[in-house]
């Protein structure tokens, strides 16, 4: 039963037929790239891994949607895709800035950028709940916080499913930001590598001249792919989720398969449109 009175739709299991179809589509996209532009094969695999990490990470982010805005349900009072995109794109900003230090530093900077946004946002959410609204944090899905051992039923106000951000949700938000920032930056770095290698031939320009175009294109396609994966995951979550302790968290394999398939197809177009 959700805070809005409806049952939570969508099961937890994986549909085998749909999963096989998704994997076939993924393999076809990878095959097309291999045939048409073999140099982009490994970058495309990186894009797929990045998309899957984003989908996995979004499941950690505690999102309460509209019920959280009235203190009727725990989590952050905004949409799943919205918040995940905010964190992941802040990570992408940091990752792109550190790109000249190499792949691993950029990925680390991206992950920490996303986690930092979530750490500050989650803290301010609790500050508003506690100091401006006088409401303590309480989960509606578990009796006890798995990290701190705090009990929740007695701190849940009457007629609600809980409110605020318990510590497990806070940690979930930070982990979600880490995965989102890492995945988004990985996608950006892979696109950037492909464009920097391929654009000089396409545009008949020097490698230095194509850098601004490559950075802009890689950035906009990374943002686009981030939104695709965040929205697919939001559909998998169906509404709200409290974090890693929420029963809905178990649905992540389904979203990872869907996101990997979508990332493969979108990545294929993003690569072939520019360099072929």
């Amino acid at each position: 039963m959700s805070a809005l009175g409806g049952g939570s739709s969508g099961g937890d299991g994986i549909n085998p037929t749909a999963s096989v179809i998704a994997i076939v589509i993924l393999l076809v996209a990878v095959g097309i790239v291999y045939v048409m532009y073999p140099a982009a094969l490994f970058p495309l695999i990186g894009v797929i891994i990045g998309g899957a990490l984003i989908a996995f990470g979004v499941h950690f982010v505690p999102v309460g949607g509209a019920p959280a805005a009235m203190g009727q349900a725990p989590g952050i009072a905004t949409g799943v895709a919205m918040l995940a995109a905010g964190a992941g794109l802040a990570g992408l900003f940091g990752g792109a800035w550190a790109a000249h230090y190499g792949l691993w530093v950029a990925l680390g900077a991206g992950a920490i950028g996303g986690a930092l946004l979530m750490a500050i946002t989650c803290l301010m959410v609790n500050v508003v709940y506690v100091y401006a609204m006088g409401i303590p944090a309480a989960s509606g899905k578990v009796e006890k916080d798995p990290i701190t051992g705090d009990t929740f039923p007695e701190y849940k106000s009457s007629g609600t499913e809980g409110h605020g951000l318990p510590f497990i949700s806070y940690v979930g938000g930070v982990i979600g930001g880490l995965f989102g920032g890492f995945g988004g930056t990985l996608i950006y770095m892979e696109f950037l590598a492909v464009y920097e290698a391929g654009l000089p031939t396409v545009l008949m320009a020097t490698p230095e001249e194509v850098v601004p175009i490559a950075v802009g294109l890689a950035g906009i396609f990374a943002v686009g792919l981030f939104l695709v994966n965040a929205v697919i995951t939001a559909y998998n979550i169906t509404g709200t989720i409290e974090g890693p302790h929420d029963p809905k968290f178990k649905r992540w394999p389904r979203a990872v398969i869907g996101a990997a398939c979508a990332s493969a197809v979108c990545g294929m177009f993003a690569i072939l449109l520019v360099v072929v």
Partner: protein
Amino acid sequence: MEELLFGIGISALAGALATIAGAAEDTESDIGSQGDPNSQVQLAPQMGYVHRIYNKAISGEPPAYGLWVALAAGIAWALMAIQFNAVLALVLGSAVAVFVQGVYAVTAYLGRTSSLAKFEQPVYIDLLKSVTSVTMAHAFIAIFTCVTMCFLMIEALGHPFPLPLMGLIWGIALGAAGSATGNPFYGKERQYQKYKFGAGLPISASGDIVRYAEAGQRSSLDNGWFTSKGGGPASGICFGLIVFFELWRTILFEPVANGWGAIIAGVIIILVFMILDRYVESWARKTYGPYPTEEASS
């Protein structure tokens, strides 16, 4: 050394701009009921509570601000490309984006409110005239400060992204921070002010929003006045801290250990915020105590 001090100064300036942007963004969205509490504004007439609250929610705050800031940044970028003065270009870009915001606000209010006609909810033309311009004014502040901050990140700090892409990214982050922090204060604390302080809203009370003010009916301007004292500044602090710490740790620590210094500094900052959060959570449990059970209160 000079370069480092310049970078820290720009980080502080960008953080200050972000703080103003966050506060203006949340107040703008509360006046227009753009965040999640719009569900209650839309629900109220269906439960028999006709009201004079503005409702311009056509999308979530993050994509809306992503669009507006990217639009302002794109226009400013194009104007600068034809040798316009940067300040003038940023102002003109923000002004055009605000007109788009105004069109969205008007069409969203008319569309959403007229869809409630069968519940006898009127469309108030005077409301449209008085509130739209106020949301536009707040939106201008939010968009201009955010796009100026993006401009500083590129021109002064050397970020490689083009201005429109930077506007899209930070516009989405601005909306995410503002809606996450400010929505509960507007949704629970203002819309349901008549319910007990210190408790969440019972689900059965949904739709029963406060519709009357000290004199006459409550308007969305009253809501902006209220949230500008709580949710707005909190959203501003949230977005300001995000921008400041993101820039500060990079400027100061990136040269350390070939880029890893900024990452380690980020981890330490996150741990500090985590400890602060745990303190806030424990303080609330200890200070407020558990809710009385029904037997205890009767």
